[in-house]
């Protein structure tokens, strides 16, 4: 099913938006995880510092890496479920 020119234009815009969001979120995830690894490698005393008895910065950040993974997937799914899907539905008509 070939798209009409205006449709093609709108799909290109939507594809551009989707690509920028996907790349930005991917870059954020890479930065968070490798940031964590680099802190482990080069800031061992900081990572071992106890915030409260029993809870070191390293353990807290490790848990936060997991929480950040959730948050980023939630952000993407939320955007895609609402805006992206609706826009695709309009283009399919």
């Amino acid at each position, binding site marked *: 099913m070939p798209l009409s020119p205006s449709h093609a234009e709108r799909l290109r815009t939507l594809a551009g938006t989707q690509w920028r969001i996907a790349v930005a979120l991917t870059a954020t995830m890479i930065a968070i*995880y490798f940031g964590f690894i680099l802190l482990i490698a080069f800031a061992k005393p900081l990572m071992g510092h106890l915030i409260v008895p029993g809870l070191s910065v390293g353990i807290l950040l*490790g848990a936060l890496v997991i929480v950040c993974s959730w948050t980023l997937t939630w952000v993407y799914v939320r955007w895609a479920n609402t805006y992206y899907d609706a826009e695709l539905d309009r283009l399919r008509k």
Partner: protein
Amino acid sequence: MPIAAQVATRIGEPNTVAMGFFFVFIATTLGITFWAARRTRTTEHFYAAGRSIGPRQNGIALAGDYMSAASFLGIAGLVSTTGFDGLIYSTGWLVGWPIVLFLIAEPLRNLGKYTFADVVALRLQQTPVRLAAAIGTLATVALYLIAQMVGAGSLIKLLFGIPYETAVIIVGVAMIAYVMFGGMLATTWVQIVKAVLLLSGAAILAFLVLLKFGLNPAALFGAAAAKYGDGVLAPGKLVSKPLDAISLGMALMFGTAGLPHILMRFYTVPDAAAARRSVFYATGLIGTFYLMTFILGFGAMVLVGPEVIKSVEPGGNMAAPLLAELLGGTPFLGFISAVAFATILAVVAGLTLSGAAALSHDLWVSVVRKQHASAAEQLAVARIATIGLGIVGVVLGISFKGQNVAFMVGLAFAIAASANFPALLMSIFWRRFTTAGAVSSMLVGTTLTLVLIYLSPTVQVDLLHHGSAWFPLKNPALVSMPVSFLTGIVMSLLRPNQAEATGFAEIERRVHMGVATGADPAA
């Protein structure tokens, strides 16, 4: 058993509760297989469960496919013996999932049919691309399978007290039965049953641990620090070389997005939106599971003790079962043992199915028969491939008995990250990607990973006991993945192909719009 003399544990003895739970699991999953077999009549059923799996079910099944016994027993063991260092793995195994969501899941569902090679080959030359992709897939599957089989044999021997070879054969027969008769539908439900068992087993165990510490994780970590020093809450010697940690991190993060048995799951849902939602559920479940490994690991450290854990099994793999025995007695040990067995069985079933798809769909149907195989022939070849792979898995499992194969999972991830992921990504997003680029990238990715792992300290020092290794890193992904990308880019630019670039316009549209319902995605 000499173990029982030193430590009061029934690990290593035949455990009737474990046997009981295990037989219930086998009976249930074979029942599912029987039900699924009557619904598996076409290749679309066999490879993709008729695209009938809902996003929530697929999310749970993805978690089931991904959480291996290595993560459950291995990470709990690592945390219990090294403390914080083990947690580095807990996070590493999750961070690939957002990448799968942002870059791979939806395009894969919209572009392909059964395998990731469908996507790479879509606008390129079928024969060379499918051949190279099948090599990458089979290398990943074989290494992963060996690690699981050897793990299965030793663990089951330890947990159930049955001989290694018997254990490997039981695993092999069950996985062939699931996949051959029930195809993807049975495999999916085996994953779901397993994931629910594993998550609830881990949750009950974590809850029992936390009950002893007023439901406060910090109190648990504090008790560990009080007993074994503040060092257990800080990075130790596991990450003495930063480049090693970064290389392993790259393999885990990008390898997840190139694992054939994970990628294949995105074809089981009705559309790209469902594929997206299923990653969301999977990330939630897998993240929860790895957070629980924090509790299980430190719980085993404080309550069981690293010395006891290592005396039962030097690798630390028995930390979670010992903890279960301590907190819930022999019946709970039996339950956790059965869960570990079910975990292995489900993972090998998923691996076998993806290997069978590479052999039959990519190699036989596309390369040998040039798309001229009848539906009945395709299904028959897929089933023969399943039996073949099952037998190969059992033979490899038995021949690698007693070898240290833990590194093979990391290696499988390195190949997935270096051979599968770059070609898949470039075929979806880069207009000027060509057949020459795809084939060279996949072949260089596979061979370079294998050569570098052979030259690495993992094989040279740990396995062959040489004084030093030619290649300094334990995991090669830091080198092999960029080289694979670079090869793909350079070869595509050196050998440009106008027709293949023109074909990209259709890809650009289909990545978002998908194919019209009812149309054949491979047409």
